[in-house]
């Protein structure tokens, strides 16, 4: 987590790719990026309607109400109305630069 002026940003490393999201959940303004980073469940014809564990490391779950967000897109997994912006991230010479 980094603070840039009044803005808190969570920076995530997903398999070597860096992503940055605002630390504010669009639901009730909870500290989204303080949430657990892990995977999620899937169940469809593709999994023969059995529960599977997928996308390990790509999902952050808001600690207030458990809403899941895709770190790579900023979209929640449950509602098109709940999404956060993603900030551009550049990596050069071992330095991670977030542009807000």
């Amino acid at each position, binding site marked *: 987590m980094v603070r840039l002026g009044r803005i808190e940003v969570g920076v995530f490393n997903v398999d070597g790719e860096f992503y940055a999201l605002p630390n504010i959940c669009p*639901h009730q303004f909870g500290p989204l990026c303080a949430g657990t980073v892990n995977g999620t469940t*899937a*169940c*469809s014809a593709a999994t023969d309607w059995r529960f599977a564990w997928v996308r390990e490391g790509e999902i952050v779950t808001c600690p207030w109400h*458990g809403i899941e967000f895709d770190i790579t897109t900023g979209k*929640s997994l449950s*509602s098109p109305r*709940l999404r956060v912006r993603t900030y551009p991230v550049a990596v050069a010479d071992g330095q991670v630069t977030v542009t807000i």
Partner: protein
Amino acid sequence: MTATETIPTERIALTLADMAVVDADVHVNDTPGALAPYCDLPWRLSLQALDGASYPYLQVPGFAPNLRLDPPIPGSHPYRSVDTAAEMRAELSELEIDVGILFPDHMLTFAALPNIDYATALAQAYNRWLMEEWLLKQPGLYGVMLASPQNPEAAAREIERYAKVEKIVGIYLPTAGVNPLWGHRLYDPIMAAADASGLPVCLHSVTLVSPAFPCQLDQFENHFGRQVLSHSFAMMANLTSLIHSGVPARFPNLRVVFTEAGIAWVPYMMWRMDKYFNEYRRMVPFLEKRPSEYIKERMWFATQPIEEPDNPKDLVATIDLLGGPERVLFASDWPHHDFDHPRTIMKLPMPAAAKRQIMGENALALFGISAPVGKL
């Protein structure tokens, strides 16, 4: 220009004669004696033994199991039943209804019958009787076939048997007393057969004191309390059940109709399920979209007993909240004690096109029924 052409069309009063009127919920009187000739042995003998006995409405031991706790309401309006197809045709026509979708009376408590073999035979008898004595005898009468929750495999075969029968336009899922609720995977054979048949499933409940949800109706002091909660709680519970086990995702062609619970509970349930979908999506990952989206795409709600707010605009707003007029089917519940006359919808402050949808167009499309002669 003629005189009539000078009148703005919106000022010409819309009448029931101008549109197809389909009633998504009317009831036939299915007595033990009537069903007996259509029932296989040995259970035919049981129905014959019940024939002729006088029992109050929905209270026939071994046929319509119920626990009626109230005394007859002092000075109340009389009980009505429709006993023949000719009566039904005449009475619907009197109400300016072109097409009726027939549901049972006593078989409303069907799910509470514990004997599996008897229930299987009784469902088959009801379906044969409905076809022979009602649907084939009068024009404009269509039926929903009874699917026995006690025997899902037999019910699935029965659905396959009736899938292409013109006058059978849906599958009645007995909802009062059903345990487990209709979303349980136990019923997957019924949902799969319904999905393949193209026939919508129609949930219909009734006030029933039973250990199944909504249980504890016996705790109310009188029938006011039981009636207020029974049908709508049953529908809320079964809608939640269908969503929480992913029925609309697992059976992508399945269409669902909810009858006799009014409509105002629907926006509440949409909002509540969407809210908890945010928190518990990991537990229902088979849902590819919010619960409200499945509802707005593949579920319909019959009007009766329509809510009657002091300001009718509130009801029109409620219809918009649950997805608009295309989700709503007019139903009278004729001949029951709390039936709604078609004018309850006709008098609402809504555009003519919306009234046409609710009064008939939606149901004709959903049930695959041709427009009545001279209408549309």
